[in-house]
């Protein structure tokens, strides 16, 4: 299938406009072109039959091509607005991208000595970009990775030097503004040096109510012994299509601990894969999703154990209400060489309405013979005994329900180590609970 259609023309026109307005070095031009070529050959995966990855997700609106890609930041955003609406702390290192473009004025450069955190364009040494970009999120893996790569321009580049224990969280904040249906392709590359430690926050927020299309790609590279605390916050508006991809490459004895929080968008997809490509690598992939109305949150979480002594923990929790839907597709692949692997997967759901639906599918694919793996999923309508217990103490039903939802969510939310971010997420949960309960039955 090619995009030689009226709707395909829109993306092609955008691609050409970018090429013209923001010419890039040969290697990057070539990379963009490869991205475009692949996207052009496969198109959006709108056909759901026989399409395992997007079986539950209707992407037809993307195909209509009504989203506007713009070149350069056009809408001003005040620091006060960000403080009010986004996760924020003046103590963090923050890179802000407005409608896909780096905002120097709103950003706060790296505070820790030796740590690099800047826009791609500002990197003095572009060799690491050339070396790593699109190496883990390859253009031919999916239409969205290809499309994002075709529009590679600004992006967040973070490098933690070897042996540096960075105390300052690094926040990569991607914002869309009101006044249009934005198409943005946020891009992130984080390289964590040998035995380094860092916390990296990616957040995606909308300031307007318009339907946007956000297709981020983030690549994380962990060198031997590196540790990253990764926090992903998706709180875009209820009209938005968010199709996010995260690819993590782990060397020996590295630790990637991720917490993904999502609520809000029309469709929010978190496609997260970790490759444990050397002995002793460990990843902890946790997540929390809250869905109301007609929202859909889709967590596609997978780990490949390629070498021995790897450990992976997947644990996601969801609260669903209204006619919303969530997908948890957890996959662990243990390859033949990956002896002594330990893997567990869990997805727990609290379903508050009969109109809500969870499609949960943890799966293990094991080719090694000496491994310890477990998986499980539950979906329940809440415990009537717990509710009666609370009510029998004088707590009214609505308050009791709110306490139960809050308690259910807290197991993940309380794990967020960065205090200001944890408080932000807790506030969003508080604001979401009344919406969840209003659509409960």
């Amino acid at each position: 299938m090619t995009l030689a259609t009226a709707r395909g023309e829109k993306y092609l026109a955008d691609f050409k406009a970018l090429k013209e307005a923001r010419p890039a070095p040969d290697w990057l031009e070539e990379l963009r072109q490869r991205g475009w070529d692949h996207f052009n050959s496969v198109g959006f995966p709108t056909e759901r039959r026989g399409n395992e990855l997007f079986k539950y997700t209707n992407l037809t609106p993307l195909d209509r091509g009504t989203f506007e890609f713009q070149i350069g930041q056009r809408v001003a955003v005040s620091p006060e607005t960000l403080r009010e609406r986004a996760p924020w702390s003046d103590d963090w290192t923050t890179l802000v991208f407005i409608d896909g473009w780096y905002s120097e004025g709103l950003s706060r450069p790296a505070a820790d000595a030796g740590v690099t955190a800047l826009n791609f364009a500002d990197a003095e040494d572009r060799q690491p970009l050339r070396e790593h970009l699109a190496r883990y999120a390859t253009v031919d893996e999916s239409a969205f990775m290809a499309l994002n790569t075709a529009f590679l321009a600004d992006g967040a580049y973070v490098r933690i030097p070897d042996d540096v224990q960075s105390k300052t969280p690094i926040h990569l904040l991607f914002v869309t503004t009101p006044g249009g249906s934005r198409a943005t392709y946020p891009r992130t590359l984080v390289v964590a040096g040998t035995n380094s430690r860092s916390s990296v926050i990616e957040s995606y927020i909308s300031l307007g109510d318009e339907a946007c299309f956000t297709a981020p790609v983030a690549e994380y590279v962990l060198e031997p012994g590196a540790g990253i605390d990764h926090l992903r916050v998706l709180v875009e508006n209820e009209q938005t299509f968010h199709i996010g991809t995260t690819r993590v490459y782990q060397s020996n004895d590295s630790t990637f601990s991720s917490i993904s929080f999502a609520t809000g968008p029309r469709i929010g997809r978190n496609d997260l894969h970790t490759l444990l490509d050397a002995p002793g690598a460990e990843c902890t992939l946790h997540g929390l999703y809250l869905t109301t109305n007609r929202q859909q949150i889709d967590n596609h979480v997978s780990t490949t154990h390629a070498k021995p002594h790897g450990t992976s923990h997947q644990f996601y929790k969801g609260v669903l209400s209204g006619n919303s839907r969530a997908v948890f597709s957890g996959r662990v692949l243990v390859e033949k060489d990956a002896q002594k692997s330990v893997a567990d997967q869990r997805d727990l759901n609290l379903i508050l309405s009969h109109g809500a639906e969870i499609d949960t599918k943890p799966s293990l694919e094991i080719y090694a013979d000496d491994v310890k793996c477990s998986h499980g999923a539950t979906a329940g309508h809440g415990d009537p005994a717990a509710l009666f217990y609370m009510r029998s103490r004088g707590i009214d039903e609505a308050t009791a329900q709110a306490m139960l939802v809050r308690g259910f969510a807290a197991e993940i939310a309380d794990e967020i180590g960065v205090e200001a971010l944890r408080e932000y997420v807790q506030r969003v949960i508080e604001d979401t609970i009344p919406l969840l309960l209003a659509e409960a039955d």
Partner: protein
Amino acid sequence: MLQVTDLHASVIGAGDTEILKGLSLTIEAGEVHAIMGPNGSGKSTLANVLLGRPDYVVNSGTVEFDGENILQMFPEQRALRGMFLAFQYPAEVPGVRPWQFLKAALDARRNFAGEEPMSVRDFTKLFDDKVKAVGIDPDLVKRSLNEGFSGGEKKRHEMLQLEILEPRLAILDETDSGLDVDALRIVAEGVNNLRSPDRAFLIVTHYQRLLNYVEPDAVHILIDGKIVETGGPELALKVEKSGYEQYATAAAG
């Protein structure tokens, strides 16, 4: 204080089988009543129906608390009026800590009484004192309520709630079952300390042993959904000795 008249009740979803078949009971302020009966006689059903558990349906009869018909009230409305149930099997409440839970419960009562919520500081002091008094491991209250608690720990938590919420009518549903002697003593002390002219207790139990520590004003024998005999403390001793068998004919007739 509590007047139950000809109460008939069944479990939702269990067909037409009635569990309570015309139960009548009057408890005045200041009194301690014990209801004893074999398994399946309807003891727990009575305790749960009094608090309005949604799994049960009342077919006929009345329940008045302070002269007010409570059968149409939600469980929380009954609780706010001063009723309390110490559960036989307290539910686990994931993600909710005992402190948080009790603060919410106490503030709801205070709000109903037109009082301000208790300050965090005052409540914490009250809570810590009572945790100590009831003999609860302070590490335990950092966990989710009842989650991973042993049977005895759950019962102690029920007593903690009783002591903090200070209800006017406390119903203890087999609080004594599965307890060792120390825990039993704590339950008994809790009841005895709280005994007062304006408070009443209804102790639902299979065995007589709690009544060694708490002297009831009246003992009722519940067989097959009906009270078949009412007497003083000596009735409990009699049942302990000769069992419930003697009532089999009464129930059949």
